[in-house]
């Protein structure tokens, strides 16, 4: 820049001024330079502008959080913006929306309101508002009321796995399950850490590395190696680096930055990414290049240039650790769909803290005409594994009609267990009460289909494995025996009778070996914690391939009460379900109980 003086004198003088240590002699010299040297004058102005801006932004706590609010403010300032461009908030809009709108309306001031900065408490602002008068004060109070609402601390990511980690002294050691918020910086000296972002993306980075969680769909890699696996629903997940950004289009890729925050590389393992280079804060659009699977690129700043140069380089998958090693000493990785805590009323109950991977439908108690259904989380009188469990009681005193309820959750194909490979599902069910429940269509089902989203999806009703207790037409299966639902591959349902009766007060443990690609499953049942009895192998209920069924990434519980009751006796089904656990199948498991 032409403003930079070719000597250090002005820099030293200005820095002394910032430190509050400018001597009289230095002040005189500064005065002279400011009056006579244009470049010195410009340096002085720009340095002090930065100094003053830091005071304002730090006063808002903005830069310490690397928050979206700072970016919004910067964009607001820089774009010549127009505060009025925000439309009025429709009645019923959320508080979050109103806060955002409020922040944009007041720009810097609302930043400070939200952050509780002392700057605004200074008399000048109060005087100003007093001068503006009552309408202004009312206006301010309203905005303050909105803007002062504390922003809820929502985790943007969670630590899902760690492996032999040594953390930098500045970073609190993190373990599996730790929530991460926007602006958290992780400095890993060695080892591997896997994070799951709220949007579903997963990153695995290898120490030494420094990584920031920016928000639910972006992170910043300052140094080190990182692999991101991004499901389709998390398209747009972005890994920023000092001189580039990689925007995912639903894929898996690796990025690296050297220890000086330079020499970035991108290697695309699957799918496609967009590599952005150049300024992101200025008015210009960054340069964008598409990189596809099997390709790689480097980003360099060549010889004093500040413009990143992108070059194609040899693709090297071996440069990155793409999966955490499975340690024999650590517990086997598992997907655990449990019922600990929560109330089940939310559309997506956020187990285990990552939206979209919890129970997607609630199980709260409710009544409809003629029926009463109570679904609660219980701890007393636990099942075999102990801990919290779901207890359901459905009753009908009289009348006719159908009651049905479903709870289900989506699973992460790329989670701790690769659900494209053979795996084992384990869970226990206790029959707490069973009275009548013998009409055609009285059913209790456990399977891996999804009921609530069948309509409008490409999926045909297609559970893979499917366990049921109920009454059937034709009596091919004995009523109230546990049965397995299969298919002949031509959409004709077949039932396999386990011969194991469902009795009140009994606990049944299920273990289901699932081989998605081979389209077969092998269920085992143990009654009362006794010996396992194995069945099958059984074909998947779906006539479609695993790929067509997206590998059945769901867990689903459904119960139906059909027929009618003339009132002689209460029709009742009560059952309890313990956590459902999925683990990778060990070699040869299909042939074992």
């Amino acid at each position, binding site marked *: *820049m032409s403003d930079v003086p070719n000597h250090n004198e002005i*820099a030293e003088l200005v*820095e002394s*001024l910032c*430190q509050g240590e400018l001597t009289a002699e230095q*002040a005189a010299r*500064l*005065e002279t330079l*400011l009056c006579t040297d*244009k470049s010195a*004058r*410009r340096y002085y*102005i720009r340095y*002090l*502008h930065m100094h003053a801006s*830091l*005071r304002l*932004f*730090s006063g808002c706590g903005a*830069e*310490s959080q690397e928050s979206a609010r700072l*970016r919004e403010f*910067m964009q607001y*300032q820089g774009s*010549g913006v*127009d505060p*009025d*461009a925000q*439309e*009025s908030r429709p009645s019923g809009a959320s508080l979050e929306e*109103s806060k955002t709108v*409020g922040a944009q*309306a*007041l720009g*810097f*001031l609302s930043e400070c309101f939200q952050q509780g900065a002392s700057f605004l408490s*200074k*008399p*000048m602002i109060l*005087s100003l508002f007093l001068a*503006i008068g009552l*309408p*202004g004060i*009312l*206006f301010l109070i*309203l*905005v303050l009321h*909105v803007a002062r609402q504390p922003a809820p601390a929502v985790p943007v990511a969670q630590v899902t796995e760690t492996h032999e980690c040594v953390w930098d002294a500045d970073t609190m050691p993190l373990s599996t399950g730790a929530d991460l918020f926007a602006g958290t*910086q992780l*400095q890993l000296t060695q080892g591997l850490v896997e994070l799951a972002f709220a949007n579903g993306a997963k990153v695995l980075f290898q120490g030494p590395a420094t990584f920031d969680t920016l928000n639910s769909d972006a992170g910043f890699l*300052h140094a080190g190696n990182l692999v991101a696996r991004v499901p389709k629903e998390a398209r747009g997940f972005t890994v920023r680096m*000092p001189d580039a950004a990689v925007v995912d289009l639903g894929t898996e890729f690796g990025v690296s930055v050297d220890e000086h925050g330079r020499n970035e590389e991108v290697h695309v393992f699957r799918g496609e990414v967009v590599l952005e280079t150049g*300024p992101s*804060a*200025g*008015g*210009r659009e960054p340069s964008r290049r598409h990189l596809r699977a099997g390709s790689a690129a480097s980003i360099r700043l060549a010889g004093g*240039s*500040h*413009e990143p140069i992108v070059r194609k380089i040899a693709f090297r998958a071996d440069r990155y650790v793409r999966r955490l090693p499975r340690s024999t000493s650590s517990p086997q990785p598992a997907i655990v769909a449990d019922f600990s805590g929560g109330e089940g009323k939310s559309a997506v109950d956020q187990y285990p803290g990552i939206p979209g991977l919890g129970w997607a439908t609630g199980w709260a108690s409710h009544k409809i005409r003629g029926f009463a259904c109570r679904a609660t989380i219980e701890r007393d009188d636990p099942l075999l594994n102990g801990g919290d469990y779901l207890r359901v009681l459905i009753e009908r005193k009289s009348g006719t009609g159908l009651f049905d309820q479903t709870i289900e959750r989506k699973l992460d194909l790329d989670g701790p267990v690769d659900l494209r490979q053979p795996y084992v599902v384990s869970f226990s069910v206790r029959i707490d009460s069973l009275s009548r429940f013998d009409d055609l269509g009285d059913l209790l089902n456990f399977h891996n289909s999804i009921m609530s989203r069948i309509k409008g999806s490409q999926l045909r009703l297609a559970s893979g494995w499917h366990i049921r207790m109920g009454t059937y037409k034709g009596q091919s299966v004995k009523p109230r025996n546990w049965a397995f639902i299969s298919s002949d591959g031509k959409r004709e349902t077949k039932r396999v009778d386990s011969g194991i009766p469902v009795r009140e007060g009994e606990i049944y443990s299920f273990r289901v070996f699932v081989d998605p690609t081979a389209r077969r499953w092998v269920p085992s049942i143990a009654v009362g914690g006794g010996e396992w009895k194995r069945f099958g192998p059984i074909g998947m209920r779906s006539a479609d391939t695993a790929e067509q069924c997206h590998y059945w990434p769901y867990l689903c519980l459904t119960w139906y009460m059909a027929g009618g009751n003339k009132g002689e006796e209460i029709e009742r089904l009560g059952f309890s379900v313990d956590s459902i656990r999925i683990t990778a199948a060990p070699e040869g498991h299909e042939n074992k109980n």
Partner: protein
Amino acid sequence: MLWVSSQHRPMNQSETRPPGQPLNHGIFLRLFTASQPYLFAYIYTLLPDWNDAEEVLQETSLTLWESFEKFEQGTNFRAWACKIAFYQVLSFRKRRGRTPVPIGREAIEAVANETVELAQSLDDQLRALSACVKRLKPRDRTLLDRFYGLGLPVKTIAEQLGRPVGTITKALTRIRQMLFACIERTLAMEEQG
């Protein structure tokens, strides 16, 4: 929301309004708050003392409000505000009398004139600063928060962190210089673009 109920039309710092239509507090607040960071930095370059600059900003804000009816349509609010702030600075210095100030009248005028030429560049700098701050290490950001955000004296920070005063001073200098260099790089990239 009261604040959005008044106008939905576009408005930027070159506010335009129909002749004869009264300006209201909402318009003023939006213009003022949008310009305020720049205005504070402007005043600080003329009066490099936090307390003095804030006091002058307070006085300037009141004067701006009182004079808002004189604000001409189609003109730049920020430029108008800076002009008023400049005279507020001179007035403040006059009131101060013998109390020494870091730079004199002639230098102030030179700086003020130069700032007008640099206005766009200072906007760019502000944007670049945001990107550069993001790259700081957590310990550096923490230090900035204590010094700039909480306004703690270096001595207090040193006591809190159990470090010598000189170490904190040097660290702050290093961070400022690092940020300034980063801003230079970012702006140079944009210029080359």
